[in-house]
């Protein structure tokens, strides 16, 4: 009797990019070689992303609970021969805990994982996304069966309201209330829409869920349909998300086969169907009304929401729209009950968990799911392992392009909807970008504005012209052409744009500027008045120099200078020829002794 | 001497030759065939502007005419931003000139308005026909930039003092009778060109605004302590002929024109719009003392029979030294184009007549000529209902509204009269003061110099 082993290889976009498909194929071949009569019977699975993309490809072995990282094709043979056959562990493939400098047999013990609380991501990385069995095995469709079997629609509504779940797309509108509004309208059809148009740069939690656990979204939408009397569903998925579209489609087809979707679900007279719509590829299409216009086949431009889309949405019918992460939360809430969910998160109005994509100048990057109210410090230092190369932390940008940068003083800010807004930032879809002292806040703000200037739909003047002109000012400041009064002009445009714009994208577009000026005004003034960029990013405003006392003459900077403008003998202080210097900043990044500084 | 050519014109480009103007012209001065552009015979024209009031041959947006709007506005002396329909028959305006003066800091700007203006000006701002808006008017004029807002009604009271006295003198001394009023410049011009032989029948009094003008630059100059040379008098008149009168050589004293510019009620409305003064919302204000102080008698000058009534109120009391039994002398108000009445002055009966509408004066003049007229005093107004229906008044769009407009304007004046503290010219405290401090007595030397005038024959001898 041979013992069973399961090998999960992550095939999320991140790992695929790092060649996990090759690893998968190799593993398949190797297992085939073993033949049926081997003493181990290996089941191979291509799973979704479990968040540690930067350490991919990820390979996990059950029941031994061993996780290997950065697995290359040439490692596969070892894995089979050593680990699978002889239970021998390959040290170099194990997770390396930067904090303790230890290798961990299973990354679940890592600081990165053990502080997380996975609800939305509960299955991602653990199951074969398109295998319904896998999903059911982990409790999938229990909720739907429970609801249809033993609950009235209003009971479902009740549970969701009780749970305190709020939209994970950014605005954080109470999901229960949203459903209720639609449910109370006596008309048909009522539409249920999944917003999978994840647009924030650096955010990819929705993609991971759709790729790695599509059924949770489908079940969530179906439960909503049951609760509000929905008839048709649309999953609006960003066009770039090929794999997400593929997996969602496969999952939908399978669910239909199993009568979990389509006509007379589970033999009842409740029918609901979901069709996939590929996005227009515009950031603004993530805005609900624009998304709906896009589904209707019109230009993806927002409309005023004086009448809520829950009352008049798609084709003027009641429409419940939530984003992917929100949907993924629904089944488990119904399964375990609203009170269970309500117990997680802050005392105030932010319940449950939130997935963040932790990126930027931080040691551990990837998807992080934590209870609402977790402080930035916990996320960045405990989970993220702190700033890369132990440089000085400067700011963390939260909430995507229309969020805002928060400075070090705010590290102990509990992350939830309301505190973030008070701090001139926002939850957004949960992008979290860590910045160190080599980041110029003016430059960063300029970057976000340039993104918004291109992604604004351009329909209304405040957003289109306002953002464009704010960008012009910011660019001037970065190029050393900042003028006195620019900061005031920026704020003036901000205040108007944030109130007079047509849609929430426009209204939130000034956030990066507002926050940056609020927390880093001195840096703006320095750029404008002293023509100096302390981070050494704005080339026109930067001169690098070497602190003779600190420099030990290791010669590293010299070696890495593309312009050969650094002179100096070994073990003697070096010097930079400012005229030749191209201000690439390599020397500063490389110097271990902080001898290179911005004059 | 100005000719009517520069005052009243018909724009050939716009005239369709319907000849409705010819129907209303009291002196048959409009010549031309049906369907062809009309011409004005300047020898005959008295510049009453009734043709201007009736003309509907407007500049349309769909059939182009050679002359562009801007040029047309310029030619008519209108402000460049005037945004009203323009019609074939028009009177040349003075508004541009006045606007310039208003911007001139070193002149002392005095304005006066004829009685009929205050019951019509509001109409051009959408107020109901005939709305009395004396207070708003005073406020608006001040806002417009006039240093003193005096009033023609004061001049009217003064006219009564002089004209009344003149009448009583003629009666007493067996002077030329009947005596005709001289307030209406169109009538005066008509008399000059048609009945030169009867000119000594016309009161030698200047018209009220000319009297006022003369006083503003003498007495007014003293009390305001300004050099008369610096004073600029503007008259706002319901009349298109007043500018003609203003430009008569004799209307000046010691080198100063009595009135420097006369604009119409319509032009005042245009000036206010041009200055973005919202007449509807502006708060009422008082006229400036002392020369803006007036009585009900001065006010009713604006309606036909008004001068007569005012004269009788004062004449009666000056002659009989008794208070007049009934102050409202309705028998001379409104009605036929020519009406007569008799007033008992105790020892003798004063016979008076009132002519409204110049068409009706011919019969009277012929009678006088033939010595068949036993009246003592005759008021003549060229326009159908007196000044309230003057050629310079707001132009009523619909013919069907005209009667209402005239009636309401009249009502407006008589109500104003009824509600004023003083209703007899000789009781006007400022008039008394003027005689005490400056003029001495009616018909005195000063009066004679400043307030009286002469007439000339304009008859073409052939």
């Amino acid at each position, binding site marked *: 009797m041979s013992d069973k082993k399961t090998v999960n290889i992550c095939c999320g976009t991140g790992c695929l990019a790092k060649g996990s498909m090759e690893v998968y194929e190799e593993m398949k071949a190797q297992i085939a070689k073993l033949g049926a009569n081997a003493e181990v019977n290996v089941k191979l699975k291509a799973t979704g992303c479990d968040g540690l993309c930067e350490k991919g490809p990820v390979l996990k072995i059950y029941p031994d609970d061993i996780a290997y990282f950065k697995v290359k094709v040439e490692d596969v043979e070892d894995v089979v021969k050593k680990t699978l056959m002889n239970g021998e562990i390959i040290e170099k493939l194990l997770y390396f805990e930067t904090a303790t400098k230890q290798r961990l047999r299973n990354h679940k013990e890592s600081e990165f994982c053990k502080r997380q609380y996975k609800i939305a991501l509960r299955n991602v990385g653990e199951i074969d996304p398109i295998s319904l069995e896998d999903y059911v095995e982990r409790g999938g469709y229990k909720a739907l069966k429970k609801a249809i079997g033993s609950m009235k629609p209003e009971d479902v509504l009740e549970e969701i309201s009780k749970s305190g779940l709020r939209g994970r797309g950014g605005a954080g509108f109470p999901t229960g209330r949203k459903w209720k509004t639609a449910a109370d309208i006596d008309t048909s059809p009522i539409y249920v829409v999944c917003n999978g148009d994840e647009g924030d740069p650096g955010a990819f939690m929705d993609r991971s869920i759709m790729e790695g656990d599509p059924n949770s979204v489908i079940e969530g939408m179906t439960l909503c349909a049951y609760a509000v009397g929905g008839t048709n569903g649309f999953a609006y998925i960003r066009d770039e998300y090929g794999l997400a579209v593929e997996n969602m489609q496969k999952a939908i087809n399978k669910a239909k086969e199993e009568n979990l979707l389509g006509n007379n679900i589970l033999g009842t007279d409740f029918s609901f169907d979901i069709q996939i719509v590929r996005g227009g590829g515009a950031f603004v299409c993530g805005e609900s009304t624009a998304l709906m216009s896009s589904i209707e086949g019109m230009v993806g431009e927002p409309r005023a929401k004086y009448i809520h889309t829950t009352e008049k949405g798609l084709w003027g019918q009641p429409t419940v729209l939530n984003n992917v992460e929100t949907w993924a939360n629904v089944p488990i809430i119904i399964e375990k009950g609203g009170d269970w969910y309500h117990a997680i998160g802050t005392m105030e109005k932010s319940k449950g968990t939130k997935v963040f994509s932790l990126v930027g100048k931080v040691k551990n990057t990837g998807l992080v799911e934590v209870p609402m109210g977790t402080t930035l410090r916990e996320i960045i230092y405990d989970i993220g392992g702190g700033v890369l190369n132990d440089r000085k932390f400067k700011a963390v940008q939260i909430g995507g392009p229309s969020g805002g940068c928060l400075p070090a003083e705010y590290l102990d800010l509990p992350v939830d909807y309301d505190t973030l807004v008070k701090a001139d930032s926002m939850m957004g879809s949960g992008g979290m970008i860590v910045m160190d002292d080599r980041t110029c806040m003016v430059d960063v703000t300029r970057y976000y504005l340039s993104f918004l200037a291109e992604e604004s739909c351009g329909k209304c003047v405040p957003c289109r012209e306002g953002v464009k002109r704010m960008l012009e000012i910011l660019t001037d400041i970065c190029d050393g052409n900042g003028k006195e009064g620019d900061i005031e002009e920026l704020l003036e445009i901000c205040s108007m744009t944030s109130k007079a714009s047509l849609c929430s994208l426009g209204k939130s577009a000034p956030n990066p500027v507002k926050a940056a000026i609020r927390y880093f005004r001195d840096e703006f003034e320095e750029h404008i008045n002293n023509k100096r960029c302390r981070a050494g990013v704005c080339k026109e405003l930067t001169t690098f120099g070497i602190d003779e006392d600190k420099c030990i003459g290791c010669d590293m900077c010299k070696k890495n200078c593309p312009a050969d403008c650094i002179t100096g003998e070994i073990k003697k202080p070096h010097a930079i020829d400012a005229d030749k210097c191209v201000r690439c900043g390599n020397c500063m990044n490389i110097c271990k002794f902080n001898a290179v500084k911005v004059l | 001497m100005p000719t009517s050519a520069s005052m009243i014109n018909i724009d050939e480009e716009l005239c369709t*030759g*319907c000849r*409705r103007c010819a129907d209303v012209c009291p002196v048959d001065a409009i010549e031309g065939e049906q369907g062809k552009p009309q011409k004005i015979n300047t020898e005959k024209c008295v510049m009453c502007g009734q043709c201007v009031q009736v003309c509907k041959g407007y500049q349309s947006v769909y059939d182009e005419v050679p002359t562009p709007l801007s040029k047309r506005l310029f030619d008519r002396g209108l402000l460049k931003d005037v945004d009203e329909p323009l019609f074939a028959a028009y009177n040349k305006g003075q508004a541009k000139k006045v606007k310039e003066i208003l911007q001139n800091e070193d002149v002392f700007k005095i304005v006066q308005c004829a009685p009929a203006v205050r019951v019509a000006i509001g109409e*051009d701002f959408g107020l109901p026909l005939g709305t009395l808006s004396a207070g708003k008017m005073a406020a608006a004029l001040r806002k417009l930039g006039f240093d003193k807002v005096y009033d023609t009604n004061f001049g009217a009271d003064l006219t009564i003092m002089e004209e009344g006295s003149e009448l009583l003198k003629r009666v007493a001394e067996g002077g030329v009778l009947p005596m005709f009023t001289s307030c209406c410049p169109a009538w005066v011009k008509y008399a000059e060109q048609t009945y030169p032989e009867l000119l000594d029948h016309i009161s030698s009094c200047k018209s009220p605004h000319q009297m006022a003008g003369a006083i503003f630059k003498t007495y007014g100059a003293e009390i305001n302590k300004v050099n008369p040379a610096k004073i600029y008098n503007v008259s706002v008149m319901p009349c298109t002929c007043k500018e003609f009168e203003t430009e008569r050589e004799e209307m000046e004293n010691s080198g100063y024109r009595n009135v420097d510019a006369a604009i119409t009620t319509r032009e005042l409305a245009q000036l206010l719009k041009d200055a973005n003064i919202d007449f509807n919302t502006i708060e009422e204000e008082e006229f400036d003392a002392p020369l803006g102080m007036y009585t009900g008698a001065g006010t009713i000058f604006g309606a036909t029979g008004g001068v007569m009534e005012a004269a009788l109120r004062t004449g009666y009391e000056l002659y009989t030294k008794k208070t007049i039994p009934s102050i409202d002398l309705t028998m001379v108000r409104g009605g036929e184009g020519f009406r007569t009445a008799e007033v008992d002055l105790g020892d003798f009966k004063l016979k008076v007549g009132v002519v409204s509408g110049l068409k009706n004066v011919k019969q009277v003049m012929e009678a006088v000529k033939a010595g068949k007229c036993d009246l003592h005093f005759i008021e003549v107004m060229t326009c159908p209902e007196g000044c309230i229906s003057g050629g310079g008044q707001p132009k009523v769009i619909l013919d*069907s509204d005209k009667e209402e407009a005239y009636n309401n304007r009249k009502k407006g004046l008589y109500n104003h009269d009824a509600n004023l503290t003083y209703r007899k010219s000789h009781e006007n405290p400022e008039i008394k003061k003027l005689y005490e401090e400056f003029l001495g007595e009616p018909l005195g030397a000063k009066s004679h110099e400043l307030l009286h005038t002469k007439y000339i024959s304009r008859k073409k001898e052939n």
Partner: protein
Amino acid sequence: MKPEFNSFVIADPDKCIGCRSCEIACAAKHRKYNQGKTIGTMNNKVTPRLFFVKNKGNVMPVQCRHCEDAPCLNACPVNAIVEKDGSIIINESACIGCQTCTIVCPVGAVSLLPRTEGNVVTGGIQVKVRAAAYKCDLCKEEGGEPACVKECPKDALRLVDPREDKKDRSVKAAMELLKINANL
């Protein structure tokens, strides 16, 4: 062409003296925001709904015949022209000024004129005057006798109802006219 016609206003060329009072009255009556009674309350862009024509020895206003199965109505791409109990009415505020109606109107009764009300108005000042199609609407919305008929000093204009006075020469005129236009 049906024998029946809708009501319409027509001018008697023998009576008309061409004074244009009808146009002024028409424009004045149709004002929406300002109902002042004097010329000073009107603006320079007078927009009548009947149009003065001057031919040799023939002056008169020409106005809409309110055709049955009206071409203007059928041609209007934005449904700005409607039929209201036997009258063809242009909703000027819905007109975008494409002029299609002026092209197809057989009698030339529709004109594109500057629309000075309900346009790009900014704090009272008008920054752009758009054009719209204008034609006789029999003062249906304003009510009462058509302004032109009421104002005409020579009673040259009259509102005829073909259903009643078939013998009327004006009606005959209109019928004849439409025949002419039919084969125009």
